[in-house]
């Protein structure tokens, strides 16, 4: 059920999509061809530098921009999400930051209009700051809850040198929300950042996470997107110095009518850094749509880079659509490794037959397979209480969507 695009050998200068296209394993979309280099796409703190998208632009071509009118308009939004803040351990502060200061402390300029508008209209930022050499034993969980408001947000996460922390940001409730999250990981610091999108129906969430890693820093980012009508959450990571390592994991589950989009850009602009991207999605129901775009740029200076990105989608029913576009741009041959893979497969009826032939009812068999599809990403988080909670959330998502089968929706039978 999977096909892989070729792993690039050392020093290869182009990406090979031929097999994937032949197998129709992933879509490369329609519309204009990409710009000459990912690096040439603008980033700016000025909202007006980004024209209002019409949906044909490279970065918007999969997005239902008509459903995003509010967050794309450069207008005031007076709502605020409710912040649930835990008791903060020593070395950790949460504070409000003035607009000017917020821009100064943001590690990369916004990469699209929604993100730039969020920054402009947020009226300053909330900053979570972890002092240098602070090692947190417990995950720090911040909950942002919407009650139907229209809100813009700007969040700074600043992890000082030599610190270690697990930070969970949970979005729930209902909102029209756009957000810029800036993540700074200091020299030799480690941040395990988990972003949960557990919105209720009726939510539009457009966000961008911009990250910069200091020398020898480690960032593990996990994005879990389960709820919301339209969620578009982009991540852009870059390096301040050499030796850093970034792992970006994503897990999404789209039901009927949901649009869940994740675009990533890893800008290898420093030598000897490592990146791994693994996003997995399941889709089910009429009009369920997921988009994954993974861009990796290895600049000429980034010798010794080691990168691999992959996206897997499991399409459970007819009427769902997964777009998956990996792009790898390499400007130096002196790298350790670079590769990507993308595969979109249907639910495997041979797996279903095997499990059923052991007496396991179809609904239970599907649950086993879908849970199995996600389980490695969940365990990769490495924090048992979060893993357990996440498995519970996936379980809930499965029960919700599996009820469609119980009600007798037709299951396409594809025979291998």
């Amino acid at each position, binding site marked *: 059920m999977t096909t892989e695009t070729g792993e690039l050998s050392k020093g290869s200068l182009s990406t090979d999509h031929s097999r994937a296209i032949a197998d129709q394993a992933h879509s490369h979309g329609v519309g204009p061809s990409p710009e000459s280099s990912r690096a040439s796409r603008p980033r700016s703190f000025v909202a007006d530098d980004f024209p209002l998208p019409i949906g044909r632009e490279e970065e918007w071509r999969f997005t239902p921009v008509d459903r995003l009118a509010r967050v794309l308009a450069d207008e005031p939004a007076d709502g605020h999400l409710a912040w649930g803040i835990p008791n903060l351990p020593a070395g950790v502060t949460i504070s409000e930051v003035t607009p000017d200061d917020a821009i100064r402390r943001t590690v990369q300029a916004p990469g699209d209009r929604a993100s730039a508008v969020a920054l402009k209209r947020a009226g300053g930022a909330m900053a979570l700051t972890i002092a240098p050499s602070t090692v947190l034993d417990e995950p720090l969980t911040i909950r942002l809850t919407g009650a139907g408001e229209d809100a813009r947000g700007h969040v700074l996460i600043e992890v000082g040198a030599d610190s270690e922390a697990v930070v969970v940001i949970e979005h729930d409730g209902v909102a029209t929300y756009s957000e810029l999250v800036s993540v700074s990981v200091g020299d030799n610091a480690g941040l395990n950042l988990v972003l949960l999108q557990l919105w209720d129906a009726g939510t539009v969430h457009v966000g961008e996470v911009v990250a910069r890693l200091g020398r020898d820093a480690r960032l593990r980012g996990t994005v879990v997107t389960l709820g919301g009508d339209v969620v578009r959450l982009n991540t852009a990571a870059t390096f301040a110095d050499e030796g850093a390592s970034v792992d970006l994991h994503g897990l999404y589950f789209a039901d009927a009518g949901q649009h869940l989009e994740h675009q990533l850009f890893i800008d290898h602009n420093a030598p000897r850094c490592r990146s791994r991207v693994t996003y997995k999605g399941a889709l089910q129901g009429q009009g369920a749509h997921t988009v994954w775009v993974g861009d990796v740029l290895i600049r000429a200076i980034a010798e010794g880079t080691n990168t691999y990105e992959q996206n897997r989608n499991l399409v459970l029913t007819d009427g769902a659509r997964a777009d998956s576009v990996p792009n790898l741009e390499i400007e130096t041959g002196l790298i350790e490794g670079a590769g990507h893979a993308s595969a979109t497969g249907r639910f*495997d*009826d*041979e*797996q279903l*037959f*095997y*499990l*059923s*032939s*052991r*007496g*396991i*009812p*179809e609904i*239970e*068999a599907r649950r*086993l*397979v879908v*849970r*199995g*599809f*996600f*389980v*490695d990403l969940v365990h990769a988080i490495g924090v048992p209480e979060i893993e357990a909670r996440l498995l519970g959330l996936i379980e809930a998502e499965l029960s919700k969507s599996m009820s469609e089968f119980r009600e007798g929706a037709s299951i396409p*039978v594809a*025979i291998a």
Partner: protein
Amino acid sequence: MSTLEIRDLRVSVETKEGLKPILNGVDLTIGSGETHAIMGPNGSGKSTLAYSLAGHPKYKVTGGTVTLDGVDVLAMKVDERARAGLFLAMQYPVEVPGVSVSNFLRTAKTAIDGQAPPLRGWVKEIRGAMDALRMDPEFQERSVNEGFSGGEKKRHEILQMELLKPKFAILDETDSGLDVDALRIVSEGVNRVKSTTDVGVLLITHYTRILRYITPDFVHVFVDGHVAEEGGPELADRLEDEGYDRFLAAAQA
């Protein structure tokens, strides 16, 4: 005492060119405790019989009946057949990534028995069965069939047969691709289930080698989608000496 009765079974397979008939009227009756070997050349329809009995959607039954103690098996869904007591050890077991063997076995056992097995006894039972099949305990933590060697897959199939205790087990070329040591281990497993339960076995094989370890009560020669000749164990000896040529020539004539 149970009986699995196959009467004039006709099965076609879906191909790009449309339905292609494979089984042309199979008659077979298997009682509890009996071991029937189905032997035949490649393409004779042996595996089609196995998958049809288990209910694989690729195979369309166009005529005939299959009953288990008088109850219509063909009307049952795949999982219902398993719960009724049928078990298929597959020639090519399917990988299920992310689902551990222990989770899979417990889920299957719970489904078959209608209730979760008592924890302590179950753990002991699995361990005992795995020991007997020379399977490492860490095997339980691996994903179902993922990265298993050919021999591991077959042992895992027989492990399931031991744990699920079916009324009738269909072993589809369980011996194919096994070296002698693995064949002996797998055969011992089958014999253990035979001696401790009342299972009826339908042993589908291309080769006679496995019959040195598992003695059949009946041998059926399968040619061109039906049983061409039947006999006792001595028929297997004759096939070992003569091969299938005699039957193939007759089928082509």
